[in-house]
């Protein structure tokens, strides 16, 4: 149903820590691994071993460079998948009802059997979070691993998205952003989590934690070490005294 629910019972989503992501792409392939075998059609790859391979991925890592006014340029690795927006334009544009936002948890999904592959939802998403599968020709997007997070065939601790479970650096967090007391909401509050392109009016559920300030004191003349001696002989004098004290 392409009407958005007026509100959802939960706002499940991801919190991604840009201070911690090392850009390893682990979440990319674990996502592909889980989702190719599970929800919907396989995530396929065209020209897989050829000149122009194109596969569908639900999560990709961009790397940006930022040049501050002073100090060296910084590199930030930037994972991006569907943000499960509250005002998801990708849902309302869908002519078939294949795209929908779940009432119970706010997850935005594509019901692939209804999808005509028109691509309009991908156009409507400002973030590039939807990709047409090159072989199946249905729209693919992050499912928030809806078939993991409630899955009773998985041990309790594994009921979290594949990308979160695998992230070696612990840069990805999953939880209910609608609950101000959840771990993820606290993290967002503590670390100043932010929305991507708030001006697009999509109200993303996923939040990003900013990189901590870097290279802070490079040019500041911090207090240096007080020399005990400038010469080796002076040093030995100090050493003798120091050893006496031990």
């Amino acid at each position, binding site marked *: *149903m392409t009407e958005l629910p007026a509100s959802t019972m939960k706002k499940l989503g991801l919190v991604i*820590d840009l*201070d*911690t992501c*090392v*850009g*390893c*792409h*682990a979440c990319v*392939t*674990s996502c*592909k*691994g*889980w989702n190719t*075998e*599970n929800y919907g*059609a396989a*995530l*396929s*790859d065209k020209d*897989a*071993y*050829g*000149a*122009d*391979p194109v596969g569908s991925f639900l999560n990709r890592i961009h*790397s940006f*460079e930022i*040049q501050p006014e002073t100090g*060296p340029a*910084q*590199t930030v690795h930037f994972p991006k998948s569907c943000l499960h927006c509250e005002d998801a334009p990708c849902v309302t544009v869908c002519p078939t009802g294949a795209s*929908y936002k779940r009432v119970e948890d706010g997850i935005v999904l594509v019901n692939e059997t*209804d999808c005509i592959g028109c691509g309009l939802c991908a156009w409507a998403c400002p973030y590039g979070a939807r990709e047409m599968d090159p*072989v199946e020709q249905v729209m693919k997007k992050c499912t928030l691993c809806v*078939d993991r*997070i409630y*899955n009773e*065939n998985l041990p309790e601790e*594994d009921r979290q998205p594949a990308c979160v*479970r*695998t*992230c*070696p*650096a*612990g840069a990805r967090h999953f939880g209910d952003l609608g609950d101000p007391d959840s771990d993820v909401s606290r993290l967002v509050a503590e670390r100043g989590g932010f929305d991507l392109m708030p001006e697009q009016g999509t109200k993303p559920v996923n939040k990003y934690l900013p990189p*901590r300030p*870097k290279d*802070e004191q490079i040019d500041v*003349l911090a207090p240096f*070490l*007080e*020399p*005990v001696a*400038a*010469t*080796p002989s002076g040093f030995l004098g100090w*050493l003798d005294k*120091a*050893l006496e004290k031990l």
Partner: protein
Amino acid sequence: MTFQQPKIDTSPKVSDEIRKTTCYMCACRCGINVHLKKDTAGEMQVAYIEGNRDHPVNKGVLCAKGSAGIMQHLSPARLRAPMKRTGPRGSGEFEEISWDEAYDIAVKWLKPIRDTAPEKLAFFTGRDQSQSFTSWWAQAFGTPNYAAHGGFCSVNMAAAGIYTMGGAFWEFGQPDWDRTKLFMLFGVAEDHDSNPIKMGLGKLKKRGAKVIGVNPIRSGYNAIADEWVGITPGTDGLFILSLVHCLMKAGKVDLPYLAQFTNAPVLVNEDPDSAEFGLLLTTEDGKHMVIDRATGKPAAFDAPGVRPDLAGTLRKAGVTHRSVFQHMAEKYLDDAYAPETVAAQIGLPANRINRIAADLARVAFDEAIEIDQPWTDFRGTRHEKMIGRPVSFHAMRGISAHSNGFQTCRALHILQILLGSVETPGGMRFKPPYPKPATAHPKPHCKVSPGKPLDGPHLGFTHGPDDLCLTADGKPARIDKAFTWENPMSSHGMMHMVISNAHAGDPYKIDTLFMYMANMAWNSSMNTSGVMKMLSDKDETGEYVIPHIIYSDAYSSEMVAFADLILPDTTYLERHDCISLLDRPICEADAAADAIRWPVVEPDRNVKGFQSALIDLGARLGLPGFVTETGAQKFKDYADYIINHERRPGVGPLAGWRVGVAEGQSTLQHGRGGPNPAQLDEYIKNGGFWVGHIPDEALYYKPWNMAYQDWAVKIGLFDKPAPYIFSLWCEPLRRFQLAAEGHGTRQPPDHLRERIKATLDPLPIWYPPLEDGHVDPVEYPIHALTQRPMAMYHSWGSQNAWLRQIHGRNPLYVPTKLWQQHNFVEGDWARVTSVHGEITVPVAHMAALNEDTIWTWNAIGKRKGAWALENDAPETTKGFLLNHLIHELLPARGDGLRWSNSDPITGQAAWFDLRVKIEKVRSPGHSYPDIPAQTSPVGHGPARVSQKVGK
């Protein structure tokens, strides 16, 4: 109206069975859960791979490669059967043959060599995870020519660590991630400890601990560092010694630690007339001598209750002998190491060096931590607490892959030790079987007797000229010239020299080159085009200069094309392996651990685990250990070997679930014990690994902690407690220097004397990378580096349909200064020239980069026809290797000799010494050199991949 939405199954069945084994997409060896599903034909197929939460290495996480393992396992480049070459070398034309025929050919070549001149076999294995087995095979064969890849990889790191402190970062050490407050990372892009480092950094980030990244390039781990030090390549040693200078000058060193646990208080022989000038004084019973501060008298360093005096001196026969520490003060307080002196060369402002030194001192001493855990040291002294200096360091190839790398690595360890942060809480910790000093390792062996095994293990640690591998006439005994005057402490061998030496017949000709798991015709060689030529060169008689090449690979790599006989390996999910305490286990600082791989699926091709093939071959050659008294094959296969082989009585490849006897009953026990026929089943039941935790009182101070020593003996790491002190003063280096100064009977050739005197200093020094002295730095002003991409493993990654989309080509990254200077725009190409060769490649801009450095991702470029890729794959048309610019020999200088492009101490390949110049060129549309295609013996991959086993 109620909101309508589809009903979906949120609890689908995940798989039919989970089999737990060990990942092999890199050397990190994480535990994996392989989910299998029955396909439509009822066969179990790999459906999904995730990390094993219980596993000591990865605790559930997996990296990009590990999660893409399924595509590696299903790669179209998998070899299908043994093959015999039909076309010329390098062509890739082969004929599939049976295993029997393959063995017959191998035996036909190897048997005569073994009976007459076993050294004519050169058996070199790449990133081999079964070295204790492959070296044992080579030893039984009797050739001295065996090593794995360490020599071109990171031997500087390994050897410097072991010679200095009995353990290295390289696989055998890790920062105390849970406690460290300031972490400094030198020259690491990825490392072997891929997941643990990421997990560790994650822990630091969570606690808000500070990370300083020292690296010319700010990507990956360095991107998240709180502070980036974009150092000039090759100058870390100078930077570190300048930090040492600042700390010593300020008295910010851990005196009690140095006095108790290092050779800082040991006295140095300062008698210039002595043949032992510069060696350490010893007591009558051969122990290193210190002055006891309690008595003022000389004493053995480990005498019970002794309080070694850092300021100790001894006057003997009119000569004053001072402690190592005084020598250090003299050396490092010199203004040569003052920040102001070194700043320009390092490329940092002097005040920044001062400030980092102050940071280190503050955290180490003002933010020290204490754990209420009593422990007793080897002198019998009981300590009530464990004192931690929560500063830690980690480093890898960025400092080790330079020709000054050994001394730089040593300098870093000295810095750590001065701060008292090795094996203390918050510092750097060893993983079993380390700590283990260099003296506890074997020495290298090279004595060949036709038809007989070698006289001992090939690789080891030299402690002076007597340990070198030289023949009676002083020539190198080994084909790679390891353990010779050129590189006297080349503990891991020098695999990168094998092909060029064999081709040159220097020091002698060989008959068969047998390699395993090393893409020597491509990314693991320097001078790649030259190596391809050497492998396919013929002599006057029309025969190949290297007569026979046997190679084992699992995939259709570039190296495959150059072999005469291919022994196809299985994929990692199809075979037995053991990740053994005898070798490179999976231990953590808190625990000893080992692991297995086992066939979670059976191969669907006529392939065989390489180790099993070696067992078959060993038996057919009648090698001792591989046949029974009656001459029958002793081990059925590698699994049989893993279970039944004993290296020493009670110590086998795997430590878990061995058979012991308690109260007359046989029981299962860990560590020592007899073979257990069900051992592998126990491992499988336990998730593929075994962990033995270190007792709490033994968790830190391991080299000196008797509780640790006793525990290590109990589980079989060594046979009796062997505490030792750290070697700030590294005597073996001094012994080689003494020889160069004319002492002793074994003398270096004259042309090497000066170099040995200059570089083998017993205290860490810095000298410019050797290439700087052989190449005009004005003409070639730019440093050129490579980095490991986290999502790729060397050349194997490109056959993986998922991973190759991430890194299908590798631009040359150019810093802003050079970008502007050359008027580059996006899409431009450049010609990059070194004194040795040139390449033409696409460029891209990177701002967070040292201004005199360019770099690219390692091993993305591919030869056409390899890896079952289409010939127009971007890896072959746009990708490239920097290796074409790097030669295994340095250009000739005044003396007309060509030195190996290696560290003069260990022989570590100096990949990162490379200097180049760069110019903009019109896009040729294709990277150069453009090596002609090889024929693919396995065809090309399918156009489409839709990986799904389930419905």
